[in-house]
């Protein structure tokens, strides 16, 4: 009994510490990446290569005075940032870092919350993310915040729809909702050299899902919730110091979670990258698999940065057109074709 509790505790701590630990690094990569793309230098004064800059930021956030305007609704105003981080961390409970492994005759599953819901749990937990923004925007009692919140939630609900449609297609392809089985399906090769990733079977679904991720995590080119030129900073105008930092954290954790789901669905999850199997004798397999997943998610994060500084922000009607008139019909057509293929193959 105590053993079980200790194992569960270890799993929870590892799955929370990994994203929180790489968060400062991601922020640093984002700022240096922005500087690199715009031919600037970027933060390079604090520590080697400016690596200690995020730490300095955290210290600043901690010691800054917390100002709460008098016109806010106090309970919901304080609730929103906590809720944002909590909901962002929730889907992590079911994301597998590596294949189930055996220690001392006991099979250990890497995810802390394992149920027959599988991927549905991840999506259900992620779908609550829009409420944090809604609560923040409404509780701030400010027109900019309110407009930002309404924009953000409308956008998230619209794009969730097309993401769910592609999920159904992937669901038919893999024939299971268990994340481990999905990854195991992608472990083989097609034509002898290509890994059997979901991407090679469902390229259209991959593109739709990728656009959906950008919209869901409110990143450029879909960051209308914060559109600085129109809304100051959208839903977090009234938040300062650590409360603002919590929203910032939630956005990045959201990015990590959605990237991990994307990798598991379309790019082979924790399956070893080509060439990594040479190290199998030296390093235990679960660690290699975790490293492989983290490397893939890291590449996704770089894609986020890359896109952010390459594409301009969409106009709001363009955003809705893309979601409802392009991606959704495309997703439905893709689903019908997939189902027809699978039906006639059998």
């Amino acid at each position, binding site marked *: 009994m105590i053993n079980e509790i200790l194992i569960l505790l270890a799993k929870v701590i590892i799955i929370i510490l990994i994203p929180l630990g790489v968060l400062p690094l991601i922020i640093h990569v984002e700022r240096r990446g922005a500087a690199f793309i715009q031919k600037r230098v970027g933060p390079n004064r604090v520590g080697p290569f400016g690596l200690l800059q995020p730490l300095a930021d955290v210290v600043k956030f901690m010691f800054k005075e917390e100002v709460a305007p008098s016109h806010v609704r106090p309970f*919901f105003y304080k609730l929103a940032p906590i809720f944002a981080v909590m909901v962002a961390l929730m889907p992590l409970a079911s994301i597998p870092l590596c294949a189930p492994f055996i220690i001392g005759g006991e099979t250990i599953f890497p995810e802390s919350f394992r*149920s*027959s*819901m599988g991927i*549905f*749990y991840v*999506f*259900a*937990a992620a*779908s*609550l993310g*829009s*409420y944090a923004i*809604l*609560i923040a925007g*409404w509780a701030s009692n400010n027109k900019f915040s*309110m407009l930002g919140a*309404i924009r953000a*939630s*409308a956008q998230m*609900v619209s794009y*969730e729809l097309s993401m*769910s449609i592609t999920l159904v297609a992937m669901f038919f392809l893999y024939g299971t*909702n268990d994340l481990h089985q999905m990854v195991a399906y992608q472990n083989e090769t097609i034509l002898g050299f290509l890994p059997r990733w979901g991407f090679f079977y469902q390229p259209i679904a991959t593109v739709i899902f990728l656009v959906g991720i950008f919209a869901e995590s409110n990143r450029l080119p879909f960051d209308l919730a914060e559109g600085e030129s129109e809304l100051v900073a959208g839903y977090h105008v009234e938040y300062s110091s650590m409360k603002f930092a919590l929203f910032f954290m939630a956005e990045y954790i959201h990015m990590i979670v959605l990237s991990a789901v994307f990798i598991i669905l379309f790019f082979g999850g924790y399956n070893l990258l080509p060439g990594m199997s040479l190290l199998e004798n030296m390093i235990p397999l679960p660690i290699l698999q975790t490293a492989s997943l983290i490397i893939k998610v890291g590449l996704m994060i770089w894609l986020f940065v890359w896109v952010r500084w390459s594409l301009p922000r969409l106009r709001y009607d363009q955003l809705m057109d893309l979601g409802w008139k392009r991606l959704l019909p495309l997703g439905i057509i893709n689903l019908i074709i997939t189902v027809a293929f699978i039906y006639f193959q059998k």
Partner: protein
Amino acid sequence: MAIDILLTVICSIFALVVVISSNPMVSAFSLLTMFVAMAGIFFQLGSTFISAIQVLVYAGAIAILFIFVLMLLNIDDYKKHLSRNNVKPIVGIVSAMVLLGVFSIIITNNFDYLSKDQLPQTNMMDLFKELFEKYLVPFELATMLLLASVVTVVSMLKKSLGNNEDGDQA
């Protein structure tokens, strides 16, 4: 067992807040909490798929639509309208009668209570087999009902938009 009781208590308290609270946004957020607690109850009963769908559809989509409508409407106008028409007593009488009916059914009938081990462990396969084999016709009829409501709303909207353009609404 403790978790079941806790979930039931949370569910009932927030259901009460939905009705009692004078602030519609507080009601909407309580409704959301109630949906999530209900998903927890479904999970405890062993139907994990239903609990995931409960959060995805009800908490993720329907509650957000409620909040949307609340944010876009000017609620004070409707409050005046309600108090003028004096509908409160009628609503009270009707809901009291409904509640009385429900209670009388609960008291007069002897329900068999299943223990947790006796509950059927539903997975998705069983659920969809029932849905698409046994209950196919009611299921399809329900989808037709939803489609009919969507068409009605669009046609009504189109009518009122057309009036606006012609300037008929004075």
